[in-house]
């Protein structure tokens, strides 16, 4: 019997993206540049996070016309973002035939108490996290892939590093714990006990975990890979730089060869200006995107 939309095919697509770079694009032309550079998927947006941050106001799901033009222009998987808790935006994206939905803190949340119940969709979801508890809550709701939140649109990798280290530290703690400690850890982390218990046995997350939020250079991408990311999302970092095509190619090569500094040095040469960066401490706390969702 043929079965579609299963946990196996949802998490399986995330497995196929591993070791790759997922790039934010806002039109068909950028999508083609990303595909030719070797992106393993693209994220279809109306504006990259740096512009969303600059514009303020309410950020929503992109216009279906923009998304469809991007879907028609490339043969790699196309992702799109919906607002946290906005399950109708997710239904619309699924109806468009999108390959992956990012329930994203980069857009303005539609529900401050609930995330989408993702198990009821056939399309897979990726969600952001800042630590292991948040990752396991999203997986419990049906996320087939996890990414660090980082701080999108800043070109500053510090938050992505913080979140990746927090996830890794959480995993180490659960693995090292004795069985009688697992319930207390689950309570403290606010994570589903079954997932904590499974992690204790397997020693790894049940889904793929990418890094996102502030990656701007080949070295940033390789840093996140060496910290244990399965792959990277690059948002504003490519099309807000002075030479998007060269930078995109360099980040792809650095992500594959993250353990080879000589290759990272070679591809980092003469890429031109990276995107302008922001110091996280200068951003008012109410404007931090990572604090959206729980």
């Amino acid at each position, binding site marked *: *019997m*043929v079965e*579609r939309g299963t946990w196996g095919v949802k998490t*399986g697509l995330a*497995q*196929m993206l*591993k070791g*790759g770079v997922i790039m934010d694009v806002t039109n068909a032309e950028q999508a083609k540049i990303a595909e030719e550079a070797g992106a393993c998927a693209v994220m279809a947006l109306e504006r990259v996070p740096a512009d969303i941050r600059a514009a303020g106001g309410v950020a929503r799901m992109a216009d279906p016309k923009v998304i469809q033009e991007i879907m028609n222009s490339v043969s790699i998987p196309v992702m799109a973002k919906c607002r946290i808790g906005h399950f109708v935006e997710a239904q619309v994206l699924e109806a468009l035939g999108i390959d992956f939905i990012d329930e994203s803190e980069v857009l303005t949340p539609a529900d401050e108490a609930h995330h989408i119940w993702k198990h009821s969709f*056939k399309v897979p979801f990726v969600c952001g996290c800042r630590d292991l508890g948040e990752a396991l809550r999203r997986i419990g709701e049906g996320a087939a892939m996890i990414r660090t939140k980082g701080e999108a649109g800043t070109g500053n990798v510090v938050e992505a590093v913080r979140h990746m280290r927090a996830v890794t530290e959480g995993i180490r703690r659960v693995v090292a714990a004795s069985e009688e400690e697992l319930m207390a850890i689950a309570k403290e982390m606010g994570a589903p006990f079954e997932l904590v218990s499974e992690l204790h046995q397997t020693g790894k997350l049940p889904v793929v975990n990418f890094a996102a939020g502030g990656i701007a250079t080949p070295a940033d991408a390789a840093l996140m890979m060496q910290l244990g990311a399965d792959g990277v999302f690059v948002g504003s970092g490519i099309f807000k730089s002075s030479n998007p095509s060269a930078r995109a190619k360099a980040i792809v090569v650095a992500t*594959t060869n993250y353990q080879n500094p000589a290759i990272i040095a070679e591809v980092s040469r003469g890429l031109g200006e990276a995107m302008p960066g922001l110091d996280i401490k200068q951003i008012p706390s109410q404007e931090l995107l990572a604090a959206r969702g729980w």
Partner: protein
Amino acid sequence: MKIGVLALQGDFREHLAMVSRLGVDNIAVRSASELEGLNGLIIPGGESTTALILMHNFGLIEPIRKLAKNGMPIMGTCAGMIHLAKEVLSPNMETLGLMDITVRRNGFGRQIDSFEIDIPITILPGGSFHAIFIRAPVIERVGPAVEVLARLPDDKAIAVKEENLVALAFHPELTLDTRLHEYFLAMASSSKIIENKP
């Protein structure tokens, strides 16, 4: 015996883990020098365009072609099947071009059309195989020297063999079923490679 898994992008770790589970030495291959001394090569699933660009960048195309012609067993799964095919449609791309098959990328549709199914594979002992298809390629033409190992109920070929080459449209590495890997390792251990220096 040592098996290489092309480790440019995709689920190469799952293949490496499968081979380890079967007690065989293995290596993640990212450069031509790492192809030396192998008894077999697995090309994993992933995004075919990404892996192809990286294969060109790192000068892996010609060395792999040469090893294949010298008789080295190669198994490709999903994107790996696309790399092995002589002809690829939608879009047309230059691959390793080793097997006399024509495949259509994403031939079953987008991700929402991805599926799982139990299929009989006659060469394997122990009943049907749980096959996971993810944005999988469709084999549209099979050359006269190509043997079909498995088909879907609608008759589409999904596993094919041509001498030392095996291509699967699905992902045995995402299951716990090691039978297809055992089949490939048996090919690798009995193969006569003329020269395994790339």
